[in-house]
């Protein structure tokens, strides 16, 4: 059942559940951050509306910078501004930032350890019709390996708003992973959020889960739907939302593994290098546990509707249900 302590959305499973793009939450959080701190500036590479920086541009035109289609330049310009005391948010599609500009992020942002915030929208295969070139499914892997970098992957628009504001208050380089598509609201304004904390959104009735499901991003909703289906079939699971990939809430992951002995991970990302890898790395050292990773298996994306693609790559509700049953 849904964890009642976290004040989650009561309509999560309703067909009429409110759906908002996760990137929209970033746009709102950016305006809030701008109001709170006059040092917050925003840079875009010709994707102002798409990357949801339009509201910030309207509110703070003097703190908005149009860099043109040059993500490498954008990353390093932001690094220079951050060195002078600014808190720059650079926003684009995840495929181009942190994709195209990875080395600039590593050297000019992370090696210098300056507080540039990288908002990567359109992550995952759910970008849909645009096809594989635009579907960033390697972004968690390439950001989390860089020292000094924090990596946040919100599950809905409300969490993205909170993550954006929270990131504006830290002195570290941060990657915020965002998705394009409308995504069901899972959390509410009152749901707790802190960088570095993972949250248990679904608990087993008797607190004796047989399998732990660890999910991140928009697919947390699929994990919760699967948990409900499994509960109806009498299979108790627990669902952990790893919002912050780095620094990982190691304790939450290990505790869940100790409780269940079996873990399924779910992410809209390559199974290599993403959440699944993160979980395996920690558990293999601290509590060796059987882990089944759901995500993209060493393939590129392609055109299609988000639903078609989630099904094709095996990241949907029924895939989670099947994985849990296989582990039982």
């Amino acid at each position, binding site marked *: 059942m849904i964890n009642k302590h976290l004040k989650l959305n009561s309509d999560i499973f309703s067909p009429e559940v409110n759906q908002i793009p996760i990137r929209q939450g970033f746009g709102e959080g950016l305006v809030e951050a701008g109001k709170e701190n006059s040092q917050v500036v925003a840079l875009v590479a010709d994707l102002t509306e798409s990357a949801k920086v339009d509201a910030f541009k309207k509110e703070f035109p003097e703190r908005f910078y149009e*860099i*043109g289609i040059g993500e490498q*330049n954008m*990353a*390093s310009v*932001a690094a220079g501004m951050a060195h*002078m005391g*600014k808190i720059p948010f650079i926003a684009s599609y995840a495929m181009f930032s942190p994709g195209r500009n990875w*080395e600039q992020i590593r050297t000019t942002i992370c*090696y210098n350890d300056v507080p540039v915030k990288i908002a990567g929208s359109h992550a995952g295969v759910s970008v849909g019709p645009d096809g594989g070139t635009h579907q960033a499914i390697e972004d968690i892997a390439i950001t989390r390996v860089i020292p000094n970098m924090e990596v946040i992957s919100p599950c809905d628009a409300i969490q993205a708003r909170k993550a954006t504001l929270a990131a504006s208050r830290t002195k570290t380089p941060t990657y915020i992973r965002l998705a394009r598509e409308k995504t069901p609201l899972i959390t509410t304004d009152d749901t707790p959020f802190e960088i570095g904390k993972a949250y248990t959104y679904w608990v087993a009735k008797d607190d004796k889960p047989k399998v732990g499901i660890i999910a991140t991003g928009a697919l947390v909703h699929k994990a919760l739907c699967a948990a409900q289906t499994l509960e109806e079939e009498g299979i108790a699971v627990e669902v952990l939302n790893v919002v912050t990939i780095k620094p990982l809430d190691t304790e939450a992951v290990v505790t869940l593994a100790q409780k269940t002995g079996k873990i399924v991970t779910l992410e809209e990302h390559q199974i290599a290098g993403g959440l699944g890898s993160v979980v395996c790395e920690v558990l293999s050292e601290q509590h060796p546990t059987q882990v089944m990773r759901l995500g993209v298996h060493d393939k590129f994306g392609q055109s299609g509707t988000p639903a078609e693609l989630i099904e094709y790559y095996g990241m949907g509700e029924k895939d989670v249900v099947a994985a849990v049953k296989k582990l039982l």
Partner: protein
Amino acid sequence: MITDEEVNVLAKKANDIRQSIIRMLVEAKSGHTAGPLGMADIFAAFYFHILKHDPKRPDWNERDLVVLSNGHICPVLYASMAHAGYFPLDTLMTLRKFGSILQGHPHREFLPALETSSGPLGSGLSQAVGMTLALRADKQDDRFVYCFLGDGELNEGQNWEAMMLAGKEQLGNLIAVVDRNHIQIDGFTEDVMPLESLYEKWASFNWKVFEINGHNFEEIISIVEEAKAIRSQPIVILSYNTPGKGVKEFENKPYWHGNPPNKEQGEAALKELQSRI
């Protein structure tokens, strides 16, 4: 303008810097020789005449900012900083050694007096543009940002992105200095990847372009003074330099771009430099 006496002082400083570069490289047994020697006059002019800075207060909030984009010529930066008093001269002998503040390519975490870390080519100008935009936002346009670039480095596309942005933003307090020494690792620049006409390329990106002989102090200083008065567009100074300048054996040879002198070559170089004082 600059007096003859001041020119002599700068020439002496440049010679000291060159000798330090040779000693550092011989001790480190790796590193770049030609670029640092070729830029020694420029760096002497900046650190001992042009820059508004205070070596005892590297974080002084009125200082000019120096971005070294081609980080591999850092021996000239480190030697200039040491001679200016940022850290003891002895420290120069730790170049490239474990635990040294003088990393093989500049790292600000080890040497906080740096404005930025550098090494991977092509990203310094973007950072300098970012710093200049931040100064403008904070109404500190009276501070100058100086970005030193290599010429081979201009092969990197990111420079041209940064040039477009600086031109668009008309950043009048941004001054780039290109070390036009015509060599890079694989050979002469015009053979590896032709750059000419650099003058026309920069000008077409809406930069004001100056050309100087980078070994003539009167020219360096008078052009920088002239450049600082132009506030409507960014400035680039194409500094025609002799790579390896000061040591005949090292001059104009691509080999010395990325190789250090051995002990004997170093001693001969020092002797030659000392004879020039």
